[in-house]
């Protein structure tokens, strides 16, 4: 009954192979992430919540050109522009975004805004914890999205108290 013997060996070999994988994985380093006990890791290109970048001087890169808003298929970016003056200088260009809101109820994280931005001001960060029980908190303001001022940077003019501040 050569077939029976072949069967037994075949099964044994399959089990050995399977257990081989098991033992190999037992010995190799684990890839499971311990989120939320440990922070999640992302590929560089991951498109998470937006970050509004600053230049080396700490000025906002956004010049309120509205191109991101125009490119956005979900129409979720709202901007109000204002002019930089002698005393209030917020961005590197002539104009800055006095108001810059993204409505995360609508944003589909397509990255078109990032693509459209001529100054590389709007980028996708890796923030993904945007869930909320209250949809009204999902409209993020400029202040929520701005990158911190890089250490050592000296913005040329800091807005006087009460005015639109450099954050």
């Amino acid at each position: 009954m050569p077939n029976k013997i072949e069967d037994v060996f075949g099964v044994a070999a399959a089990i050995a192979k399977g257990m081989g994988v098991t033992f190999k994985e037992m010995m190799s380093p684990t890839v499971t992430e311990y989120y939320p006990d440990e922070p999640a890791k992302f590929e560089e290109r991951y498109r998470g919540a937006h970050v509004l970048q600053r230049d080396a001087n700490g000025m906002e890169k956004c010049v309120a050109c509205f191109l991101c808003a125009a490119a956005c298929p979900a129409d979720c970016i709202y901007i109000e522009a204002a002019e930089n003056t002698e005393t209030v200088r917020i961005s590197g260009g002539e104009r800055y975004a006095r108001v810059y809101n993204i409505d995360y109820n609508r944003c589909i994280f397509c990255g078109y805004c990032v693509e459209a931005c001529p100054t590389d001001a709007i980028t996708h960060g890796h923030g993904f914890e945007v869930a909320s029980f209250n949809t009204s908190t999902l409209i993020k303001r400029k202040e929520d999205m701005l990158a911190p001022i890089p250490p050592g940077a000296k913005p040329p003019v800091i807005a006087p108290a009460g005015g639109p501040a450099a954050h």
Partner: protein
Amino acid sequence: MPDLVKLTIDGKAVQAAPGTLVIDAAKMAGIEIPAFCYYEGLTLQAACRMCLVEVEKMPKMMTACTLPVAEGMVVRTETPQVAQARKYTLEFLLTNHPLDCPVCDKGGECELQDMVFRYGAGESRYTEEKVHTPEKQFSPVVFFDAPRCILCFRCVRICNEGMGVGALGVIYRGVLSEIAPNHGDHLECDECGACIDICPVGALTSGIYRYQTRPWEMQHVGAICTHCGDGCKTTLGVRNNRIIRGNNRDHSGINGEFLCIKGRYAFDFYDHPERLQAPLVRKNGKLEEVSWSEALDTVANRFNQIRADGGTFGVIGSNHTTNEENFYLRKFAREVLATPHIDHHRTGDVTALVDALSGKTGRMATVADLYNRKAVLVLGADLAREHPLLSFQIRANYRHHQAHVYAVTPGPVREDKYAVASVRVASGGYFAALEDLRARLKAEPELVIVFDDSFKGPDVHRLVEFGESLGIPVRYICLVDYSNSRGALDMGLVPGEGGMRLDEMLAADLSALWVVGANPFKGTPGVPGSVARKARFLVVQDLFLTETAEQADVVLPAASAYEKSGTVTNTTGEVQRLKRAINTMGAKPDLEIMGFIARQMGAAGALGPWVPETVFAEIRRTVHGYDIPLPEIDTGGAAPTTPVNGRVTEAGGPRPDLIRSDHNGLFASGTLGRYSKVLNSVLEGRLDR
């Protein structure tokens, strides 16, 4: 009609009148030849070389914008050589052009952007550092960014030819050429903004619109300028319930591309900090903010009580409110308040003109007539200051058709520069001057006579007699001051049989005086201090706490022309539609306010619905001359009214002494002008007062 010239453009057989430029002939055949410096209606410049085309038998490429068509000409616009020429021209224009598009106000509607996108070289071979000159402020209205300028000279030409101002010029030569204002470091001009709108790029930008938004972010609402009586169409750019800019770049309406500073920028009164946004009722001698229902109740109860007691009402209407509102107000006064005492500030004697022309048809000139007719006689008015659109039309008529212009005025006027005759007259000297001109006027094939309040009552009749005695076709324009002065008259805001006139009402002991959108208590121009009120109860509807509103018992905050729908009639009797652009919190259109008062009084049934369209339908049925074609005005055009063709009588006889124009200059607009930031910020405005 001269024979048409036959030519071929890109293999298409084209026929055009002799003298037509190749660029226009191509356009008629549906072939676009790109151009920067060529602008219809202005002199030729041939500065940009964008319009180069190949012409058979000509050794070099030709500028289509200066080349007249010729019999048998063969033009090619799509050859590789032409494509290359366009590309190189653009590359050349871009050599020192900054990469400003993201912050440039023109971005999105920039002709240079469009051209580069379509014909251009996306990449630059120019690696040297660009010459940068800082932006300059020519005036509160006009800003200039030299590196963005492509030296097409459109601005120079529109200012010189179109506006007749000539405030812009070119300094330096070659690569250093720069547009410069007439006073070295600043402009003193009409501040009309025509140069800004005509600039194909973002070199000239406006202080009002700068850096506020981008063109695609706005909605564009066609409104009618609420300042002078010329009735220019202004397209308001609206974002978030705010008016951000005005212009007329689509060249629609009776004014084409023309707008003066008031139509283009003086919409800014709407968010003046003193704008009334809640009704006020006088309590213990002081005006206090109350709710709309309380204010309306106060008015309605008092009106009803006066009606029951048999008291007298006086009603004063407005030169700014719509035809619908004026019509409704008149009906309200006559039918509900049963009073003949109704009037408005009369600024020109249209009644006398219509009366003098009775029995004749088609004798009222339109704005277009000033451009098309062969001769124009201007009497009294300084048109460039008081009626900028009419002045523009006459100038364009002279430039394009060499029209003969006669100016008979008290002082020097802009028309002098090209008039065939300029005569200075003292008041009372008009008819002697006209007699002197009789022979020359008689020799004209046709004539438009424009006159202001220097001619009133019998003088108007005498003027019409003079005109009719010339034996040529004559048309007339009687100038009135404000956006709907003409409409107020047409809708019958005039005293009924035995009714008091405006001045008499102010002095009379009325039980109630109701002032809708007017400021009759402001006193005489030049004399400080306002007139004190006599009426026992004063209701005022207005945008601001004017001298009249300050004395009121009830003030109801009204919406401006840009915040409501309806129709207005300009000084030449052309009807145009207003579309609501924005809402201002707390203020209501006058029509709605009057409707609510009627409802509170329990009298709404007699007056019908206070819906602009419904009221206008009634106007078309019942007001003589207003049975105008609706499609015309619904598509943003103007329809001329056909005024009453028969004797017009004024109840109580004419009182020409009560007709007076405010003679607002270019930077003034009656009471409303005080609340415009831009009118008060320009230097010329301060000099002009």
